[in-house]
């Protein structure tokens, strides 16, 4: 029952899109995170919810600093790519360390991103 309840919670915030609902959304996900932690079997789910909340915060910050509403609701990988494409390597690095992105994935993302903006020099160096 508890599981179902928390599941519904995790679902709802994702169903309601968009930045205006941002505050309540993060809160809902955090609540889901707490509910998940109460049972032992849902370690993974609780961790995912925690990370999701963190990601939304970072994405929100990024949107504020870049003034572009393109971050929220994209995945972690997408976020990193967008950062690199925009030339914001510091932000990309921050996201990387924040979520402990593995080196392998990091390289793929970087290559793809640099290729999209045709930054061949950077690609060469890297």
């Amino acid at each position: 029952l508890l599981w179902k309840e928390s599941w519904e919670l995790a679902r709802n915030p994702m169903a309601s899109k968009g930045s205006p609902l941002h505050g309540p959304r993060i809160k809902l996900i955090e609540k889901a995170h707490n509910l998940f932690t109460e049972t032992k079997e849902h370690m993974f789910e609780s961790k995912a919810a925690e990370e999701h909340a963190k990601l939304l915060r970072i994405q929100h910050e990024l949107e504020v600093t870049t003034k572009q509403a393109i971050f929220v609701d994209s995945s972690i990988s997408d976020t990193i790519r967008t950062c690199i494409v925009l030339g914001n390597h510091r932000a990309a690095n921050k996201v990387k360390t924040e979520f402990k992105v593995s080196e392998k994935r990091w390289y793929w993302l970087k290559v793809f991103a640099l290729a999209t903006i045709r930054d061949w020099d950077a690609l060469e160096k890297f």
Partner: protein
Amino acid sequence: MSQIPNLENAPINLSAIRARAQAELETILKNVRGDKCLVIDPKLSGSLSLLVQSSELKKHGAELRHLTAEPIQTDRTKVVYLVRAQIDLIKFICSHIHNDTSKGLHREYYLYFVPRRAVVCEKVLEEEKVHELLNIGDFPLYMIPLDEDVLSFELDLAQKEYLADGDATSLWHIAKAIHNLEFSFGLIPNVRAKGKAATRVADILNRMQAEEPVNTSDMGIPEINTLVLLDREVDMVTPMCSQLTYEGLLDEFLGVNNGAVELDASIMGVQQEGKKIKVPLNSSDKLFKEIRDLNFEVVVQVLRQKATSMKQDYTEISTTSQTVSELKDFVKKLNSLPEMTRHINLAQHLSTFTSKPSFLGRLDMEQTLVEAQSYDICFDYIEEMIHKQEPLVNVLRLLILFSVTNSGLPKKNFDYLRRELLHSYGFEHIATLNNLEKAGLFRKQDSRSNWLTIKRALQLVVEDTDTANPNDIAYVFSGYTEERHLYPNINFHSLQLIFYSSVFACNLSYRRPIEEILRLLPGPHSEIKRGGYASIPSYETLPGSLNSSEKLADGRRSLVLVVFIGGVTFAEISALRFLCSQEGMAYDLIVGTTKIVNGQALTETFIEKLG
């Protein structure tokens, strides 16, 4: 050519089933007098196109519309809705009606549920206070003949609903459809089931028979001898592999829907920019009937051969003088020219996909996964796919294959891959992962995998098959080039087992090992003999001599209906056709399925759409 298949060659009278559905649809339309607007659930329109042509509907004064969220624009005063019992569709209808009333329009509304109404939907209508405005009825369309030997219940989500949501409505629908069949063709005396859902369908079927018995006395010999119910869950490996038959490939790359593919007109050599055309694919097309079940590699050869022989005929015609009868033959051959062109165009289009390195790479990977010998290679490959953010469906498809053949992944890898998936594709996919886990398709390892045992016991991976002259069913999944070998088709084998166990029911020495293998596969199995045939002793006390007992009096082969609960792939149907074309087979087969699927479609049903 019409998209409605010609059913004359069907082993049982399938056109009767279609005729009844047509008649029912007609009564519905006639009951609503005068001109009306017929609003169809888009999912149903494909099925309906297999029943009637739209011109036929227009004759009844119907204007056709697809049901969407947008309010309908029509000046007709009567609106007929034809929908599946799905809450979101009902909500559309409610909004339509509210929209009309707010504009002061008064219309008559008729609502027909296909195949039957659901209490939830009526509740929604009551809540929205439109219940009184509607005349509600049912259009009991439980199954549609897709071809001479294929019936579909058109339940796209059956597998997911049963496994992930625990919703057994679709099982009831299947049983009901079979029960309806029995009313036309007699009670099926033998029922065999394998898998959880399958045994439940068998139970429901028995209950229906108890409540509403099919009269056995005035029917004579039943036309269908045996019903085999198979659960898709028994074999999730086969649908996840890429199909390599002509029809199967068409489905993998272009998507065959209700016996037709839709593609750009330019591919078919028609000069109309950006226009889509529908190409019907069924046994009415003689050439297609010949090549649909062949390995694609062979199809190309066959087409080339046909083309050269035609060219030869043509040069003969133009160089030498011919008798009238020879000319007649030639003209007859020319008549098959449009079919030739059609399939050459299609084959050419397909080969642009099959020659891609990514496709060949995937085939290679599937092979490795199924052999289940090199865990690390598979793991790395899938990891890399996730990192490259390749389409989610493709990743999940291989992941399911990976998980099923290993009976789950070790916890560490499982959590790692799940985390990488969420990071790459977004956290909303946690619902999808949860669905897959509940369905047992992508899960934690809890027991040692018995895949290798099954594989060995059933001789699933066959080395080297001559794709042109197949002597084994495996050709339907066999590879493209010489070094790529064969793909297993476990489902065929599990079917063959159930089959043989029925044939050799008396021969215990043969039967025992089969039961052991059956136990290896997931899910329970059951065998029921149904009574009422005391007058035909051969069915009850099956003697050893197969030929005398299984053949019907008029020398026809007896008929087996194989029902796949959760969908079947074209390649599997091909395998079955191949099987019954073999010498010494005492059966004709009809395939029933909840839906024709491929790995992609099946995986997509599990992807939860949020937001």
